[in-house]
Structures are given as structure tokens and as C-alpha cells.
């Protein structure tokens, strides 16, 4: 009886496998023969699903665990391979060619890289990105830490303030960027008009526009970093602080000699988060200034005075339709980020040993 059931199961499983493979092979044959039939996509999917089902129902005790492992890993790994690994390998190799998004004719070696470094606007972009990252890292962490100190003092209603400071982190950079564009071009100008009789918008000069981006970014990001600092500060045991107070430590001493050293790991996390996110920031830059206004740099006129690396790459590739240069810039961007991340990990590992 039991044998019959397992026989039936075996036959169904093998049938599923065979039909699945047939579907898969037929769909592939259609693909390779250049067929434009609409059903070949569905055929391929049915084939793959049948193969998976056949494997799953295959009555084997010995290999069942392995089969399950493969089936469980397959969907995520396949998506990861197609969307991340293959494009990464292609992208790095394309940066050495004249690939225009559709076809490539020549391998040009390092020509793209020498070209991007001869463009002053790209050098400018790197410079302001680094400046932006440094400003942001300091300001976001400082503001967030002060907010966290405020929110961890035992006061009523702090839950509300915490939520209020955090809220805008949930709203996308595109929407926030346009809101602040309104604020800078209509509201701030109104205020400066009444105060100092000047209604030039901050967004009309690249220096002030740069600080406008920093203001918006700190405004958006500090609430999030604050939450992490609050978690860190809450792990500092209350009795340690009490003991310090009994020993006559001033609030400043408690802060610098107890709280800050005790949350050193949190500070590392926050520094890392602000660093990488500031490097990658794109949405606010696009929505607020879209790279404008122009700037002068090394005697050259640069139309995109506030265009940071991520936006510069986007504009090169998508707006100016120059894929080879955009791709090489992106690879360089990746290398910079990788170096920063590795440095950060090394520094934080060292610190943890010291503690």
C-alpha cells in the first residue's frame, strides 16, 4: 500500500520534471530561433515552476534536504545575480569600452578615465561631494546627539518631540526637496526682504545653495541618527550616572567622561551611516537645485555648481546621454565608497579592541 503511494508520487514527480524540462527547452529553442511568440515567456515560467515542483515532490530521503536548500535559495539568489552581480561585472567592464547603452564597438582601455579627470566639472563635483560629506558628518552627528540628550532627559511629552523630530526622515527626498525649494525661493526670500531688504534666493548662488542642501539634509537625517543615539544613551546604566552625581561630577563631566565613552560603538555606527548616506545622496540634490546654479572653478565656468557625484553621474549618463563617461564615473564612485567603507570598518574594529 505504502509502496504504491510512493510509486504514484515518484511517477508524478518524474512526470512534472520531464514536462518542465520539455517546456523549458522548447521555450529556450524558441528564444534562440528568434521567435517573437508571446507565449514563450509564460512557457519558460511554467517550465521552471514544474521543474521546481518535480524536484520538491521527488520522494528521496537522502537528498531531500539538499533539494530544499536549493529551492529555498534559488529565488533570492537568482534575483541578486541578475540585478546586482551581472550588472556589476558588465558595468565595470563597460567602463573600459565605448559602450553606448546598446552596443559597443571598441575597447578603449583607460581613455574614459583619463577623460573624466580632464573634465573640470567632475573634479569640482568630487571636491564639493567631499566637502558636503565632511560638513554633514559633523553637523548631523552634532545636532542628532544634542537632540538625543534633550529627548533622553526625563521630561513629559518627550515621546511626542522624538516622533516630531523623526517624522520627515520617512518622507522621500524628492518630495522634501521640492518643499524646501518652495521654502527657499518663496518664504526665506520674504523674510530676508523684510529683514535686510534683499530678496535674492539662497538657491541663486552656488555657495548659499550648497549650504541650502546641507540644511535640508541635516533637517532630514538628524532625526534618524537621533533615534540611534537615544538607544545608545539608554544603554548607559542609571546607577553609574547616579554614582557620578554623588561623587560631585558636573553634568558636563558626566557627559564627556561617562556618557560619550560609553556610547563609542553608537558613535561609530552613526558616523558610518552619515558618511555613506551623504556620499550617496541624490534625491534632495536633484529636487532642490538639480545641480544649478553655476560656479567658477580654476578659471573655468561650471554650469552645475552644486551637482554632487551621484547627480553628476546621473546627468552625464541620462541627461547628456554619455554612457561610457557616466559608467566610468560610477565605477570610480564605487571605488571611493568601497575605500571609505573598508577604512571605517578597520577603524571601528581597532576602537573596539581598545575598549
Amino acid at each position: 500500500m505504502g509502496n504504491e503511494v510512493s510509486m504514484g508520487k515518484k511517477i508524478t514527480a518524474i512526470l512534472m520534471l520531464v514536462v518542465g524540462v520539455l517546456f523549458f527547452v522548447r521555450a529556450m529553442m524558441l528564444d534562440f530561433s528568434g521567435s517573437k511568440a508571446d507565449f514563450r515567456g509564460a512557457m519558460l515560467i511554467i517550465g521552471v515552476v514544474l521543474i521546481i515542483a518535480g524536484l520538491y515532490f521527488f520522494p528521496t530521503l537522502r537528498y531531500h534536504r539538499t533539494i530544499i536548500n536549493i529551492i529555498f535559495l534559488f529565488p533570492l539568489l537568482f534575483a541578486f545575480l541578475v540585478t546586482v552581480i551581472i550588472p556589476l561585472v558588465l558595468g565595470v567592464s563597460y567602463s573600459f569600452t565605448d559602450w553606448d547603452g546598446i552596443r559597443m564597438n571598441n575597447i578603449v582601455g583607460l581613455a574614459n578615465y583619463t577623460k573624466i579627470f580632464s573634465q573640470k566639472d567632475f573634479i569640482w563635483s568630487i571636491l564639493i561631494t567631499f566637502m558636503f560629506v565632511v560638513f554633514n558628518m559633523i553637523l548631523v552627528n552634532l545636532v542628532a546627539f544634542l537632540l538625543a540628550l534633550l529627548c533622553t532627559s526625563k521630561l513629559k511629552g518627550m515621546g511626542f518631540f522624538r516622533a516630531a523630530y523623526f517624522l520627515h526622515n520617512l518622507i522621500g527626498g524628492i518630495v522634501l526637496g521640492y518643499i524646501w525649494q518652495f521654502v527657499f525661493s518663496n518664504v526665506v526670500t520674504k523674510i530676508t526682504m523684510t529683514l535686510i531688504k534683499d530678496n535674492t534666493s539662497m538657491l541663486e548662488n552656488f555657495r548659499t545653495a550648497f549650504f541650502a542642501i546641507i540644511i535640508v539634509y541635516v533637517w532630514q537625517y538628524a532625526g534618524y541618527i537621533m533615534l540611534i543615539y537615544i538607544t545608545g544613551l539608554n544603554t548607559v546604566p542609571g546607577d553609574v550616572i547616579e554614582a557620578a552625581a554623588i561623587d560631585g561630577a558636573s553634568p558636563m563631566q558626566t557627559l564627556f567622561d561617562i556618557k560619550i565613552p560609553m556610547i563609542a560603538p553608537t558613535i561609530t555606527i552613526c558616523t558610518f551611516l552619515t558618511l555613506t548616506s551623504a556620499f550617496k545622496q541624490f534625491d534632495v540634490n536633484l529636487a532642490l537645485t538639480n545641480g544649478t546654479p553655476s560656479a567658477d572653478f580654476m578659471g573655468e565656468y561650471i554650469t552645475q555648481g552644486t551637482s554632487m557625484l551621484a547627480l553628476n553621474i546621473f546627468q552625464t549618463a541620462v541627461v547628456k546621454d554619455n554612457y561610457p563617461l557616466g559608467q566610468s564615473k560610477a565605477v570610480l564612485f564605487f571605488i571611493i565608497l568601497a575605500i571609505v567603507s573598508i577604512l571605517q570598518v578597520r577603524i571601528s574594529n581597532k576602537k573596539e579592541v581598545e575598549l
Partner: protein
Amino acid sequence: MHTKEKTSSVIVKVAIATIIAIYVLFPFFLVVINSCKTKDAITADPIGFGGANFGQLVQNLSDVINNNSFPFWKAFGYSVEITVLSLVFLAVFGSMAAWVICRNKTKWSTVIYFTFIASMIIPFQVVMLPLISTFRDAGKFVGINMLFSVAGLVFAYLGFGGAMTVFILNGFIKGIPYELEEAASIDGCRPEQTFFRVIFPLLTPVITTVTILNGMWIWNDFLLPNMLLGASSGGSGGVTTLPVAVQAFVGSKVIEWNLLLSATLLAMIPIIVLFLVAQKQIMNGMIEGAVKG
């Protein structure tokens, strides 16, 4: 004397906190108040209540929704569909993969795990252009439309969100005693039953965290949908998402701030409502993700 000092410092602290809150929330106030005005009233008085009335708000909102260059309902519907599908797939496939990686200490699982971790530093820009060509060519080859489609975008989110999802889930699964799985297997559970009946229900808290982190990112993401769906999809035809639609709307308009601000208001409302409903979970999820990531 001592208590007096304390109350005064409390007042100072609350005052500071309130001032910061007003500063921080002021832009939102501006959005709401100016969505209630006409274009001219905004130019005349962008800060105060002058010229603001509820009727104008209704007027602006209906103007925006019925505007041909801002397909609000369509973008909203697609945004919900794409986010929900991506989150479900990431939660299910992510925990399946994390479980296999965590419970099999082989060379392969280690390689896969470290590839996932290393991939988290890859910026989207470096894979952006080849991704489009891969999707276009592979889609054309097998006859499944990957560009300009919900399926393609969800697939891309599965790929890009997978690494962080597996990383966070892996840390949690490590903490689940292996004896539990052994007991289940002695009781006659097959491995897939062990996973879906024993392990998966235990993952609820960490899946909440992962879903919040991925959800915030996917809902607000601009660059990926903009590249895959095409900037031109903001019009009447084609798939689009809210951030892409907002950007296309602003780009297409001579600056009419009453409509633009109403559009941003519409785009913000869903997130703010969600935050008011699930404030605690969202904040905890964001913290956990950062501390573990």
C-alpha cells in the same frame, strides 16, 4: 531652592524642545497652509493664513488629481502594488534564503553570505546603466517584459533588498536554538515543514523590522523606478510610482506652487498616516536596522 532650579530647567528644556519642533515641522505647516491658497495668494503671503480657505484646498486637490500630467491615483495604486509585492517576496524568499545560509555551515553558504554582505556597499549608480540593458536584452530574449513593468521592478527590489534582508534575518535565526529544529525533525517534520511551521512563525518580530526598513526605502525610492519605468511614463500611459510622478509633474510645470504643494501634500499623506498608526513599530524597526546593519 533645589526644586525651584529643577522646575526652571524643565521649563527651559521644554521651551527649547518646542522651538525645535516648531522649526522642524514648519515646512509641513507651509505645505498645508499654502495648499489652501490660490497661486496669487501664495505669492502675496507665503507664510501666514492670508487668503487660505478650505474651499481652495478642495479646489487645488481636485485640480491636481484631475491634472493630466500628474496621474495621482494611478501612481498611488502602482506604488502600493509594487511596495506590497516587493515586501512580501522579500520577507518570504529572504527568510527562506537566510535560514538555509544560517543552518548550513558549508563553504557555499559562507561564500554566498559574504557576497551578500560585501554587495551592500555597491552604490546603485554603478549597476544602473547595465541593469537597464540587461533587463531590456534578457526580457526581449525570453519574451518577458522586464522594463516598464511592475514585475521587472519587483524583481529588481528582490535583488537589491535581498542582501540587507538576509543579513538582518541571519542574525536573528542564529539566536533560535537548533534543538527546536531537531525536535521537529524527530517528530517527523520534513525540512520545509520545519521551516514554515516552526521557524517562520518565530521570525515575526524581525520580519516586521525588515519590512519597515525595506518599505520605507522602496516606497520613497526614485532613481530605480525612474530608470526602469522611464521618465516618460508620467503621462497617461504606462507604469509609474508616486516619487516619479511628482518629479515628472514638477518638471513639466511652469511653477504653480499651489498645485505643486498640493501634489507633495498628497504624496506625503499616506506615509504620515502610516506613521501615526504604527509609530512605535516604525521607530523601533529603523533603530534595529541601523544598529544591526
